[in-house]
């Protein structure tokens, strides 16, 4: 019966090609616009580590006092060196890590080639376990390496390809910023987006994955240059060397703690308050403890990681789609009511209301399907143009996959069928007697 109704539907659609084309195009444009902006939105607003986003916490400690807080009452978004090192040594969480952005030069294996820059992080061993970094060769360095200020490095498989042609380079040396490091591990491709763990530096959508990781303590010893954000927004301070800068209250080190349960998080927060209170007693802080623990989702919301452009364009597209659907309701109504007499005849010959429903909803589904297919083509074409509409760093994240294609079709058909409920209901209300009489 469905096949028959579908056939009827298609025949009816052919009868007013202009009206049909209008509906199909409205749905296609609406669904394509929504899907294109959705494809961008889903990556920028996605949870980069869903399986443990509630267990990883960004740590903030107010080290400059309430009069300098910006926004009011919020501690700086990263730690200074003194506090970061103190919290590492306290070791009150099962795992904790700290990091800063580096961009050392890398000397090529062939001395005739020009040096390149590799961006990455000076961090600690727990970084790799906390953020679930996958390894192609070797493994992360150990906590003992952290304590020994070891000259070891982990490199990405992209850098490994570039330097060693993709061979297992564990145990070999790499020269970063003119110092030699022994490679202990090569990561698999790893680039969670948004890059939540370094949102402090505005690296959420940085196009390339991090290339190199070295031991934080070693990087500090060698004064490996910091390429990230440095905020010395506190009280006036004098310093005339990098050495002095290191020990001032400048925010530049994101600090993360892994706290598996709510109880752990509570306990850690108590510890942080106690730590700040101790600093206050020691005369370093002249204000009441003000600390924050935000898990990945809370941190991304606080940092407003999702670009407002992406949100606005999604809202606009959805609004656009709704208008297209309202338009479709109107046109379907016109189309169905024009066939009142046909409905009257069918009803008089014994068709139930239910059958009228089935027939007209099938017809709407056919429109939705056609709109979906055209919308699919428009989405694919539109995705090529996403680079024009969004920042390239964000646009390149948007991609077509099976789920997007299926969603496009399903959304088109479902919404059209829903839109057809009212016109269909009106069609089913047609009184056969009245229709027959007027003829």
């Amino acid at each position, binding site marked *: 019966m469905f096949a028959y109704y579908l056939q009827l539907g298609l025949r009816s659609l052919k009868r007013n090609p202009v009206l049909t084309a209008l509906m199909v195009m409205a749905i296609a444009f609406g669904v394509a616009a929504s899907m294109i902006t959705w494809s961008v939105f889903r990556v920028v607003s996605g949870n980069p580590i869903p399986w443990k986003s509630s267990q990883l916490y960004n740590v903030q400690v107010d080290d400059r006092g309430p009069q300098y807080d910006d926004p009011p009452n919020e501690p700086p978004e990263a730690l200074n060196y003194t506090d970061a090192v103190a919290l590492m040594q306290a070791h009150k969480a099962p795992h904790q890590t700290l990091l800063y952005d580096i961009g050392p*030069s890398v000397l090529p294996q062939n001395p005739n080639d020009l*040096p390149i820059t590799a961006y990455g992080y000076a961090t600690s061993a727990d970084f790799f376990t906390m953020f679930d970094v996958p390894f192609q060769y070797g493994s992360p360095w150990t906590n003992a390496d952290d304590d020994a200020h070891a000259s070891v490095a982990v490199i990405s498989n992209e850098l490994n390809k570039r330097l060693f042609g993709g061979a297992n380079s564990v145990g070999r040396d790499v020269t970063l*910023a003119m110092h030699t490091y022994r490679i202990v591990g090569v990561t698999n491709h790893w680039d969670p987006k948004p890059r939540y763990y370094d949102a402090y530096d505005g690296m959420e959508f940085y196009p390339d994955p991090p290339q190199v990781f070295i031991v934080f303590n070693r990087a500090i010893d060698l004064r490996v240059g910091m390429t990230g954000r440095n905020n010395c927004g506190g009280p006036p301070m004098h310093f005339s060397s990098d050495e002095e800068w290191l020990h001032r209250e*400048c925010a530049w080190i994101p600090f993360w703690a892994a706290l598996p349960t709510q109880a752990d998080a509570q306990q850690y927060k108590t510890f942080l308050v106690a730590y700040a209170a101790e600093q206050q007693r020691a005369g370093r802080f002249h204000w009441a403890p003000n600390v924050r623990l935000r898990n990945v989702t809370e941190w991304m919301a606080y940092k407003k990681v999702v670009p407002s*452009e992406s949100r*606005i364009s999604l809202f606009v597209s959805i609004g656009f789609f709704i208008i297209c659907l309202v338009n479709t309701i*109107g046109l379907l*109504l016109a189309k169905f*009511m024009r066939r009142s*007499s046909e409905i009257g005849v069918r009803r008089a010959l014994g068709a139930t209301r239910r059958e009228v429903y089935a027939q007209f909803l099938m017809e709407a589904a056919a429109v939705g399907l056609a709109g979906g297919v055209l919308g699919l083509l428009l989405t694919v074409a539109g995705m090529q143009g996403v680079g024009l509409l969004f920042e390239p760093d964000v646009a390149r994240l948007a991609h077509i996959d099976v789920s997007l294609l299926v969603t496009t079709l399903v959304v088109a058909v479902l919404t059209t069928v829903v839109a057809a409920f009212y016109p269909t209901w009106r069609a089913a209300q047609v009184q056969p007697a009245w229709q027959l009489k007027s003829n």
Partner: protein
Amino acid sequence: MQIKPILAAMRRHKAGTILIGFQIALTLAIVCNALFIIHGRMARVSRPSGVNETNLFVISNVWAGNLSDHETAVQIQADLDALLQLGSVEDATALNSFPLHGSGWDNIIRMKPDQIHMTTDSSIYLSDDHTLNTLGVKLIAGRNFTANEVQALSIQTMASWPVIIVSKDLATLLFPKGDALGKQIYATNNNTPSTIIGISDTLQSHMMDSDDNAFAYNAVLVPMREVGSGYIHYLIRARPGQLAAAMREAPKALIAQNRMRIFYANDGEVTFAKVRAKAYERDYGMAVLLVIVSAVLLAITAAGIVGLTSFWVGQRRRQIGVRRALGATQGDILSYFMTENLLIAVGGIVVGTLLAIGINLWMVTHYGVAYLSGSYLLVAAIALLLLGQGAVFAPALRASRVSPIEATRTA
């Protein structure tokens, strides 16, 4: 034209009337908020940078070797000398950041050493005696830096600097009476003052976030060389007509000076036109998207009106025929449908205006955008009225041509 019969007829097809009205309302709400956003973005894009952007290009450079601060300063000077040797180069300067760059150093500006809250915030451009000339920014008061005043500084080290040049807008903001020259301000985080020795013409800050709009034209030029581990940007002004040649020769000249360096993004050199395009790509993208959406939206709404009105005309052929037979002119029929659409459109516009204001208020609280001005509502309302009248015209004309003979036919 009597309105009463039109209203009576509308009551007979409530659903269609409401659908068209609702569609017009939604379209108005979206289009006028879109216009508002487009206008805001385009206003941002058309802001001047103060820089003479033609014939200017940038080479971003980071050092690969371990140069000491002193060696770096010497190397930068040697680089600049080598660039100036090129026949295609008119002038060159080394900067830590520049207008439209997005990242750089901004610092709070204070008027007194013990002041806690900032007076304003400003870009700090670590520059030299060639900076103003290379950028093509005029000095409107005071004097330029001398070569001897330029010192070396690593970015983490907040040294003090005795002399600075400030942009016109910053000078006016800090000293509204226009007596900025020779005055002292605090532009570093330590408590040593800097004396304003010069005032430049308009010069944009490096900050591109819309949050930073209040500081968009605050710039402090400091006679310092960035010798830290970050990027140093060579801004190079080519002689007229020799931009391509200069862009080809400059990287080679730098490599010949010292090959232990890395240029940003491999190619090294980028025209200022590209810098501008990149700086505003988000704004352009948003504007383009909204223009497309608005245009398609208006087209679809027009198509919807054509579709539904055609249906009504078809449905009422007999009634039209009767009216014609009873003496109504073609003009009467035409104006009947035009007026009907006008009434629906006005209703839709009233609802749409409320909706538009609601959406705007929501965006004001959530995204801190400005309040929608009435002119956008007016423009969008007029556009939709005209659109409705234009869309209804063809079906209405067809209706007016219905012959009186239709009255005698059965449906």
